[in-house]
């Protein structure tokens, strides 16, 4: 599978440094804090890395917001970044989780 799935019609997410369960203390990773959204756990790292640390992202379906082209473009951009990330991790055999 590639690409970010938008599992809700719209959700806001904040990318920030956080501890992911099971990673252990002292190994902070990027995570996505989504407001009440059902984000598949396996996508959290990918979403965070796709958006970049310190950025607030708004990943939305194409029917939200006043400038829908802009919003669709943001979602498409995130998808392309994640695709590149997955391509890279497959090349080096890394486990992105």
């Amino acid at each position, binding site marked *: *599978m590639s*690409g*970010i*799935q*938008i599992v809700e*019609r719209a959700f806001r997410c904040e990318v920030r440094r956080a501890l992911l369960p099971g990673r252990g203390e002292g190994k902070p990773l990027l995570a996505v804090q989504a407001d009440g959204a059902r984000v598949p756990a396996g996508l959290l790292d990918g979403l965070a890395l796709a958006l970049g640390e310190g950025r607030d992202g708004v990943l939305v*379906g*194409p*029917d939200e917001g006043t400038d*829908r*082209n*802009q*919003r*669709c*473009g*943001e*979602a*498409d*951009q995130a*998808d*392309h970044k994640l695709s590149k990330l997955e391509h890279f991790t497959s090349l080096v055999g890394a486990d992105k989780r």
Partner: protein
Amino acid sequence: MKYLLLISQAWLLFFLPPQTPAQPAPAAVPPVSVETSLEANEMGRIPILEYHSIGPTEYRWTRSAENFRKDLEWLYNNDYVLLSIEDYAHDRYPIPAGKKPVVLTFDDGKPNQFRYLENGEIDPDCAVGILDRFHEEHPDFGTAAVFYLNRYPFGSVAEAPQKLAYLYQTGRQIGYHTLDHNDLRYLGAGGTLAVLNEQKKMLEKWMPEGMPLSTLAYPHGWGPAGDRQELSAMISVGLLIGAEPAYPLYHEKADPYRTPRIQAIDDEWLRHFGRPAGTIEKQDHPEKFDVFVSDGITDEI
């Protein structure tokens, strides 16, 4: 909207023999109802549908092969026929009277859009395979579709000449999507033209003679900032990524360099067409917008 044209048959009275007052009045001739095509509306809007991947499972940027087939069925059953992006870009509407044009676009040149099997046949579950099969069954639907390519057309440079030739022979088009899916917002119109020239040089190595190349799907839907008129040196239409039906370019509200599309996902089908997910049935006036209907006259609007 369908309507019934009631044809009066009063003209028959002119051919009836003269009647005297003593004769009973002839039985009323019931009106004959003739179902005609949709009423022409060539100032209406045109859906330019946008696909990315075609695959076994539906995701945000992947239309399942099953749903793609249903999309085509729904369009066909609801009086749509395919219009090429080059015809749209040049105000040509070779559409039968009463029919509605729809443009199919595919971004990113994904392998699942056009793929050969090991036996050399086209994968029946890729976009081109599905379109070919549908056209065999519904030849009046047309074949047009445009593929917006990046550096590796359909994942294979080696197969690019063969695939582009096939697309041209079967009435499909290709367009610019930039070699590296570039973000054009920071390049300006001049920088965008440079990027397009780079891709043009590559595509021209593979394109068959006569194949047009005049449209651009902006990566992420984002074109260069500022005046885009300079783009007319290379392109006739610049396509956004969302999210409305498009006006024909002769319409005063049309901007050829900000031409919107509709993503072909369930939410958008419902929003713009009132189509519930997975349905293929004909609906009564399904569009939620003022839709273009051809008058069948191709040499004037």
